[in-house]
């Protein structure tokens, strides 16, 4: 019996909690992609860089606060800096919309033009970020490392395996839950949120109803910048901030959005967790878990891994392809906001 609990603790520590954390980060990212897709009607390739930009601003403010000796122990200072990062990113995103996307909107450019434009924006933003903060790893995490460390857990329970909950993991999961609840409340219960859904559902009828498209576009970018900054900062806190990593995050984020059903915010969240857990489940080394669950004395030579961790990225790619072939509308029937 104790072996089963040990195995569960092991899985919880290395699979469930990291999966929930990573899934929350992907879900927040995919929500941003979905919002742009369903309101502005294009796939925003610059979303990864928007996340990096938001995280970068938050890091700069965090350093400033740390230099001033401001802290909110045991929580990371970055949470205090987050609102500033969000405001800066909103301003920057609106500037880009005004100077780049607005022109193409006026010309009623096709979605593919927008997509290519967004790739341009991605490169410019990427360059800007590396120019400002450099291409290297930045560590900006402070505060308590663990809520429950593996050692405490072992001492408390007497188990062999520890189930640690890192501060960043708890912060990520809780923040994601709060943000998602707020976002859905906004979309479903406020006049502005409903007008966004109406615009995404039927642009012409929204115009006829007196909904101002410029306002809808502006609010969409504000939400997208907010989500991106939060997702980027949480990812950076949890792993580390490295500009190039955010570009690679684009694939799992798009996979999440598509798996869930493009344009459907609930789908984006579900998709985030599906992708995160698939990556972890397929690349997890089950050796110790199996040892706990089998009678003593059985020697297991291999790591009992389905795929090497190098294939992590490939997993989201494969899921993406399978979904597109088998169920192109995604898990949830792709619909508007």
């Amino acid at each position: 019996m104790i072996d089963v609990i040990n195995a569960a603790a092991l899985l919880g520590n290395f699979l469930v909690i990291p999966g929930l954390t990573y899934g929350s980060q992907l879900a927040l990212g995919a929500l941003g992609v979905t919002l742009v897709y369903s309101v502005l009607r294009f796939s925003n390739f610059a979303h990864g860089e928007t996340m990096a930009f938001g995280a970068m601003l938050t890091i700069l403010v965090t350093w400033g606060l740390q230099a001033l000796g401001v802290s909110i122990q045991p929580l990371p200072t970055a949470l205090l800096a987050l609102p500033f990062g969000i405001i800066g990113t909103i301003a920057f995103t609106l500037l880009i919309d005004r100077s780049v996307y607005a022109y193409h909107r006026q010309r009623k450019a096709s979605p593919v033009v927008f997509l290519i434009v967004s790739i341009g924006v991605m490169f410019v933003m990427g360059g800007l970020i590396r120019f400002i903060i450099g291409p290297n790893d930045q560590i900006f995490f402070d505060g308590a490392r663990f809520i429950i460390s593996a050692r405490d857990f072992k001492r408390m329970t007497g188990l062999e395996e520890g189930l640690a909950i890192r501060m960043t993991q708890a912060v990520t999961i809780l923040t994601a839950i709060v943000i998602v609840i707020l976002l859905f409340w906004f979309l479903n219960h406020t006049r502005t949120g409903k007008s966004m859904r109406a615009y995404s559902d039927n642009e012409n009828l929204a115009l006829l109803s007196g909904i101002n498209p410029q306002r809808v576009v502006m609010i969409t970018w504000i939400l997208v910048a907010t989500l991106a900054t939060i997702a980027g900062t949480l990812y950076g806190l949890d792993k580390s901030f490295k500009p190039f990593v955010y570009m690679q995050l684009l694939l799992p984020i798009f996979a999440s959005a598509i798996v869930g059903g493009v344009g459907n915010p609930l789908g984006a969240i579900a998709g985030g967790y599906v992708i995160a857990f698939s990556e972890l489940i397929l690349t997890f080394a089950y050796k110790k878990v199996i040892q706990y669950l089998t009678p003593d004395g059985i020697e297991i030579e291999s790591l009992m891994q389905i795929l090497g961790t190098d294939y992590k990225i490939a997993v989201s790619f494969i899921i993406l392809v399978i979904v597109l072939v088998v169920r192109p509308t995604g898990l949830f029937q792709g619909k508007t906001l």
Partner: protein
Amino acid sequence: MSFLIGQQMTGGYGAADILHDCTIGVDKGEIAVIVGPNGAGKSTAMKAVFGMLPLRHGQVLFDGEDVTLLKPEERVLKGMGFVPQTHNVFISLSVEENLEMGAFIRQDDIRDSIAQVYDLFPILKEKRKQPAGQLSGGQRQQVAVGRALMTHPKVLMLDEPTAGVSPIVMDELFDRILEIARLDVAILMVEQNAKQALEIADKGYVLVQGRNRFTDSGEALLANSEVRRAFLGG
């Protein structure tokens, strides 16, 4: 002079004109119906009145005011309501949200207006939490009309409101439209079901190739043997 009138409208989407010197008007509390064969420019004439078609000649007067250069959404603010033929509801929004969006330009309390629409279309009250996309064709048309009524328009323009609904539902819709007209709303509609529509119409416009062919009261048009033979199937 009618309350709403498009006078001598000439224009089209591209180089070629679709409407030629076409005049369409309606008064408060009246129902005006535009009928004619396929491709006669019925919907185009209605769109021209609503500002969705650039006019080369002619003008649109609404309550004595020249609105020819106003955009459709500006005409909504002036008190014109428009129900497009297709895509006329927000399918992913609930019935009630559709009505709320119809009243988007209003800042005042809209609960009375919603109650009024529910009085007119009781089935919508029952289905108010359902996404409009899940309703039947006739119910959707009711949502579409209800949405347009939320701004309390002085003119309601309907582009083929009975397209694709069963005859029973059509009769019911026409009854409701009569009821709306009784509230002193001017109603201008395009109809495929010419005979039934002319029966409830105060005024009828028969268009052929973008031109006014016959203009008379609904009753007179129904009695006109030439109209009957050519456009009403005998």
